[in-house]
């Protein structure tokens, strides 16, 4: 059957398969360009700076980055999985609220939460002041752990990144065939036994996907670790590149970082390959949630409240307090323009990124091969690379092309084309696509995985070409996943700073740029209006996202 349909298609559509393949490979290559540029620097001799790094700081970078990654991994798993589980199977006060509210921390940029908690917890901040007033202690009578430390960075990043794990795990829990869970229950297994022996193993690929997104973002983080004074690969790259003025050695650090990431990706891929499940039955029914009573009810409530409280309510509350004190000075027409620019960029970038992700993801499904997988994986690595590195990696080749074209036009036609690509918003959108492709691709691929290959075959054997199958079969089934991808990229672009800062055209600012300019000048209160607006604008897609997750379980949105 399989063979027959392929043979038929080939004879009918001529060399279309190779076109698809070439198209996918080419776009993947284009998206991988910034990464290849960085690797290209490896061939530039680094001189004695590399030796200097090895002798002095490299061990520190490695050590801190690894600790950070391990810490955040534990943090997001502990915050994300239990909350996803209890909101799926139990009935308790606030459950329906928590379902979407637990995603809210996603709207807060990591560097903003870092600044906010520093302001809250520092010596002159409200927490310590209250403590001193209540106890009558003076400065040297007590010792609180400093939020600006490696442990602090782990907590900050875990608080804003756990929603990735929560979201993916929840979608997986919801999507699991009820008969499996009920079979477990009927056989006498308690909810925890069902959880550890059935649900969690089945959800593993989804959890690993969420985890890998969180960890890639952790490795790419610059704002938080820089402010907390932690020497990681990211800060090391900047220090070497700019402080030591050695791009080759900096690129070697970046390449080392990317190798770590590639390892992560391979791990994730491996875990997914071994567990490839397609839902077969279409029998989805409401899972009867177990009502909880007494102390268990309230402990589950607390379990869900804590991440929400520390990851969203407290930081946005602090931002609000700051913002109220200065709002009238900041809210003007220029501020509205910032909001407009941010929204526009986020909308365009998320559409572009989604289109690319569908193209690449579907192409890889159509024509799975080693080369294809490698190219797609490589192009999705941008998520783990600091935005500045991506930006420069995008700028160098595009400016080169522009300058070549311009030189050629000048010689032949005596015309100047100037900077066609690199002088415009195009390059910024491209950089976003490189940076956030992984996010969209994860959703698209997990969506594609829900479509059984039988459906492809059925549609194809009925004479539908691949594009038609995509449009008529896959996209409708994947609607929820595509919507999630769109919203995730939207929120990410809203928060993005470094690439925006470098690549934006003249007189074009965004909320993130505004918040950063003031915050980096150590004027936290002044930056709060812009920061709070990022959060407020990000909350809307996050709420939509949680609805999409509820629906993607294959059931109707809770109507009861």
């Amino acid at each position, binding site marked *: 059957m399989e063979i027959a349909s392929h043979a038929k298609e080939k004879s009918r559509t001529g060399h279309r398969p190779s076109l698809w393949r070439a198209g996918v490979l080419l776009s993947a290559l284009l998206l991988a360009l910034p990464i290849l540029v960085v690797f290209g620097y490896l061939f530039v001799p680094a001189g004695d700076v590399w030796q*200097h*790094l090895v*002798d*002095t700081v490299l061990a520190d970078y490695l050590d801190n980055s690894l600790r950070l990654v391990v810490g955040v991994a534990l943090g997001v798993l502990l915050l994300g999985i239990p909350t996803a589980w209890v909101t799926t199977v139990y009935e308790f006060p606030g459950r329906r609220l928590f379902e979407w509210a637990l995603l809210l921390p996603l709207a807060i940029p990591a560097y903003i939460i870092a600044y906010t908690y*520093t302001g809250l917890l*520092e*010596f*002159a*901040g409200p927490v310590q002041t209250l403590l001193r007033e209540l106890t009558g202690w003076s400065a040297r009578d007590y010792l609180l752990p*400093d939020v*600006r430390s490696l442990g602090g960075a782990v907590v900050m990043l875990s608080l804003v990144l756990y929603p990735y794990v929560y979201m993916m795990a929840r979608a997986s829990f919801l999507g699991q065939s009820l008969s499996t869970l009920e079979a477990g229950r009927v056989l006498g297994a308690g909810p925890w036994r069902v959880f550890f022996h059935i649900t969690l193993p089945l959800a593993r690929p989804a959890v690993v996907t969420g985890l890998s997104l969180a960890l890639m973002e952790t490795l790419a983080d610059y704002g938080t670790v*820089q*402010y*907390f*004074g932690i020497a990681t690969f990211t800060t090391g790259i*900047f*220090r070497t*590149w*700019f*402080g*030591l*003025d050695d791009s080759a050695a900096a690129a070697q650090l970046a390449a080392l970082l990317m190798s770590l990431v590639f390892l992560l990706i391979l791990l994730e891929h491996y875990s997914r390959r071994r567990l490839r499940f397609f839902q077969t039955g279409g029998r989805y029914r409401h899972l009867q949630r177990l009502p909880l009573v007494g102390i268990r009810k309230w402990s589950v409530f607390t379990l869900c409240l804590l991440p929400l409280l520390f990851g969203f309510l407290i930081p946005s509350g602090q931002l609000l307090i700051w913002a109220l*004190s*200065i709002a009238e000075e900041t809210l003007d027409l220029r501020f509205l323009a910032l909001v407009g620019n941010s929204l526009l960029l986020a909308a*365009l970038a998320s*559409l*572009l990124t989604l*289109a690319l992700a569908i193209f690449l993801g579907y192409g890889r499904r159509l024509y799975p091969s080693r080369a294809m997988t490698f190219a797609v994986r490589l192009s999705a690595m941008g998520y783990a690379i600091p935005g*500045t590195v991506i930006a*420069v990696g995008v*700028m*160098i080749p595009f*400016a080169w092309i*522009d*300058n070549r074209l*311009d030189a050629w036009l000048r010689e032949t036609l005596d015309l*100047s084309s*100037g*900077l*066609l690509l690199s*002088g*415009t*918003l*195009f390059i910024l*959108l491209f950089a976003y696509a490189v940076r956030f492709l992984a996010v969209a691709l994860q959703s698209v691929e997990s969506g594609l995985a829900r479509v059984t290959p039988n459906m492809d075959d059925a549609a194809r054997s009925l004479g539908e070409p691949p594009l038609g199958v995509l449009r008529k079969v896959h996209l409708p089934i994947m609607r929820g996943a595509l919507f999630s991808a769109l919203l995730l990229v939207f929120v990410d672009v809203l928060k993005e700073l*470094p690439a925006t*800062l*470098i690549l*934006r*055209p*003249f*007189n*074009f*600012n965004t909320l993130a*740029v505004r918040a950063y*300019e003031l915050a980096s*000048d*150590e*004027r936290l*209160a002044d930056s709060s209006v812009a920061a709070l607006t990022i959060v407020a604008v990000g909350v809307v897609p996050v709420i939509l996202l949680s609805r999409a997750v509820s629906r993607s379980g294959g059931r109707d949105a809770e109507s009861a």
Partner: protein
Amino acid sequence: MKSTLYSLAAVWVLAAGTLPATAAAADEVNLYSARKEELIKPLLDRFTEETGIRVNLVTGKADALLKRLQSEGRNTPADLLITTDAGRLHRARQAGLTQPVESAELQAAVPATYREPSGHWYGLSLRARPIFYARERVNADELTRYEDLADPKWKGRICIRSSGNIYNQSLVASMIAHGGEAQSEAWARGLVANLARTPKGGDRDQIKAAAAGECDLAVANTYYFGGMLAGKDPAQREAASKMAIIWPNQGDRGTHVNVSGAAVTAHARNRENAIRLLEFLVRPESQSWYAEVNYEYPVRAGVAWSALLDQWGTFKADSLNLGQLGINNAKAVMLMDRAGWK
């Protein structure tokens, strides 16, 4: 539906993106600025008001702007580059991204130590990096030089930010220029041994930590101190009021200063306008604006300071040509790495 959205998007991107690039012929000047928008835009608006020349602005981190300038090559739209330290200006000059400017007005206004000898860049405002002490616990005469920070008597009593920060790099670069690498490294090791905590946060955080008693001395740029004293946050005002300035090395080379400065780019298309803007920025009214708004010192002599700056008193500034800061920067970073300055 989706495809119309895409084409709409494409049209918008082309329209919004290409307009500024093609409009280079108009009466305007294009600026890449490492000074934040808040700390330059008001002056630019005044310039436009006065001359009718439109100023287009991109702000960003200096290093990234330099990279952008470099990769854009001769097609760069930028006419003028503004940085917040001399090291980056030196680097731009080394990379061939700047061009010399001869202007009697600029040369008269900017003292020789604060500009590149052949006119590749000019300093616009001065940033001093003195030592701050907690009034309650330290006497002003207990130390007089940066070198004293390495004295073991300050063990566990000093706060300074990370060595990744350009102002610390420049400070060490100036010490290398004066005393050589070996001596500076020994100093850095002594300083690291005296730190009260692992470097973290920005300059204001160091002053706050000293005010809170976590340490007794802090090293920071004066305009952060000014921002704290004159700002809206009562906690910061209170913290700053507990601190005072020591101007180091008054008996010898002077206190370390850096400049925020500007260079006309090598491929500037609006060269004349760029020079006019430069000249505008060193005029006395503009110069006193830096002091009023951001508590920076004017580069131009004889310009009135703000009341706050007057209150801190006059000081002797290091007369090293600031190009040296750029020349020694990489050496400084490596030296701090070796000394274990995080």
